[in-house]
């Protein structure tokens, strides 16, 4: 990273009455970075997103976005400062059409009041038309032309995921948080999504943080990877380095097998849930 980082998370600790969800997590994301966060279930990946987007308030640590501290700031204010986000379980507005969902992503760019809305004054009309045109760029970018006027709840899962990405893009974010964008998708859908992510980085220049369980996708796309285990960061670095890190292998595959990973990896992957005593030779 040569330029100033977009997001700096420093020593964040998050407790839920006794359960430590995040413990001393620090990382920085630079412009044009595609930064991935991985870790076993319950490692605290989504908690990081909830801290950055203002849903949770950490007990300790700081989150600096383009120089401003985000801790204790309301989610909608954080969104207006330029943090866009998608969710693990689709959080679209199911009764609204694709276009309306995308327009809601542009809510912050449509600042006219109730009075202008009721009277449908020139100001409201112009704002609606301009933003409708802006949304069409996203429809085009994500190739969802045929679904424009369908209520989102009726669309197939993969398309909904795409619409949700579109809603986050419509915000014109300066940082994009993607929570498992390819979870539950088939190979074609995953490849489409990977293409969109690369396009976002190359054409729109938006830095991204990606939480994902699809290791193939993470290792192919990410510039740097942060690995979490039970809320603790255990490794940060380029994918190739992280893949070989002994702590990472231990977290994914179980205790003490880091050294013999090549021999036992496949067997251990299925045995990882069992207590260590059972898998010892």
């Amino acid at each position, binding site marked *: 990273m040569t330029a100033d980082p977009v997001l700096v998370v420093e020593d964040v600790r998050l407790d839920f009455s006794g359960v430590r969800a995040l413990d001393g997590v620090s990382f920085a994301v630079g412009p044009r970075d595609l930064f991935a966060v991985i870790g076993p279930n319950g490692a605290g990946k989504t908690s990081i997103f909830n801290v950055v987007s203002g849903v949770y308030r950490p007990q300790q640590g700081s989150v600096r976005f383009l120089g401003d501290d985000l801790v204790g700031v309301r989610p909608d204010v954080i*969104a207006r400062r330029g943090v866009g986000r998608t969710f693990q379980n689709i959080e679209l507005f199911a*009764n609204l059409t694709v276009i309306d969902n995308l327009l809601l992503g542009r809510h912050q760019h*449509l600042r006219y009041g109730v009075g202008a809305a009721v009277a449908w004054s020139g100001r*409201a009309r112009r704002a609606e038309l301009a933003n409708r*045109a802006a949304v069409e760029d996203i429809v085009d970018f994500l190739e969802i032309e045929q679904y424009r006027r369908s209520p989102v709840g009726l669309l197939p899962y993969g398309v909904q995921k795409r619409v949700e990405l579109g809603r986050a893009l419509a915000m014109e974010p300066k940082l994009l948080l993607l929570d498992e964008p390819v979870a539950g998708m088939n190979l074609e859908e995953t490849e489409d999504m990977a293409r969109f992510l690369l396009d976002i980085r190359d054409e729109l220049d938006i830095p991204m943080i990606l939480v994902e369980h699809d290791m193939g996708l993470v290792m192919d796309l990410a510039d740097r990877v942060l690995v979490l285990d039970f809320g603790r960061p255990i490794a940060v670095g380029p994918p190739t380095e992280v893949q070989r890190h002994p702590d990472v292998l231990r977290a994914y595959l179980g205790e003490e097998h880091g050294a013999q990973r090549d021999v036992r990896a496949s067997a251990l992957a299925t045995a990882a849930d069992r207590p260590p005593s059972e898998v010892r030779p």
Partner: protein
Amino acid sequence: MTALLPGSSRPRPLRGRPDLHTSYAAEMALLNTPGKRRGVAALAVAGALLALALTDDWLVILARGCALAIGAIGLNLVTGYAGQVSLGHAFFVGVGAYTASALSGDPADGALIGLGVRDMALWLPAAGAVAGLAGLLVAPIATRLRGLYLAIVTLGLVFLGEHVFREWTALTGGVGVGRPGPAPQLLGWRFAEGSALLTGAQQTYLVLFALLCLFALGGRNLARSDVGRAFAAVRDRDIAASIIGVDLRRTKLAAFTVSSFYAGVCGALLYVVTPYVEPGSFNLNLSVQFIAMVLIGGVATISGSIMGALFLATLLRVTQEIIPRLLPFIDTAPRRDTLLTTTQLETILYGLLIVVFLIAEPRGLYGIWVRIRNYWKGWPFSY
């Protein structure tokens, strides 16, 4: 394609392709197909012509229905669109009714507050504004509570309001006495008094019908605007809404304020039709009636609110006049051989209708209309 033809600066829609729009303005227009434009125009003309076709007693009922429809649109905005269940609508209706009555009251009357502002162009916006202000004051509670808890708090509002209306006799005249409603006078035209051409009831109905059209248009505009979309976002998923930048507090505040404004206007207009304001009228029963209108008409639709209100207003006439004539054991006042009073019958009917609609057609009368429309769209094929 038409845009490419030489000499056509403004693209015209193709015949037989009502959904093919060639500009965003055409696509986003309120009435964006020829069918909608013709249908709404026909409805507006038919609504106005009803003034000539019906007898005065029916026109009074329809005028009352128009006023109720404005209130139902208000409740639908906050409950149907923004998802904030409010049982307190009757309170805001009361605030509007008394604001208008007090403003247009006779200043010479020593017993009652009266400011002598007799013109509707002044007291109607004021009634809405004061009720809207009351909504604005209540809204902070809504930003902290959800669902049933909010419903209970707004229920409390109705009881508080009932108490204040009962005790503040300088404003309301007190229980059993009441006070005259606002003066039926618009820019100097006393429309409740008949003219050479039309009777008072006909003119009152026309005024209320015009106002209903105006307020329905405003509600529809709000619903399709960014504010309306934010309402729906808060209703469907409030956390996701805030994460994409919707300010929950402001949005709920806006929903309650606009809804209360509509309720206030409804209250003022109701007592143009029924010239006496009784402080006991603004009770839970009225709130439930509004909820019934919204549920029967269609949640989160403006046209549904109107259908629901007109339906219930007509039903009121049936239960109060026609049913007692047919069934001797039902009467307006309790006598020795009456089984049910009409008020009890109404309460039972509202409950029954709500249940039947929720089970059989949750989208209400609007949903029935959609089914009819879709049937004829495909006719003679079934789909």
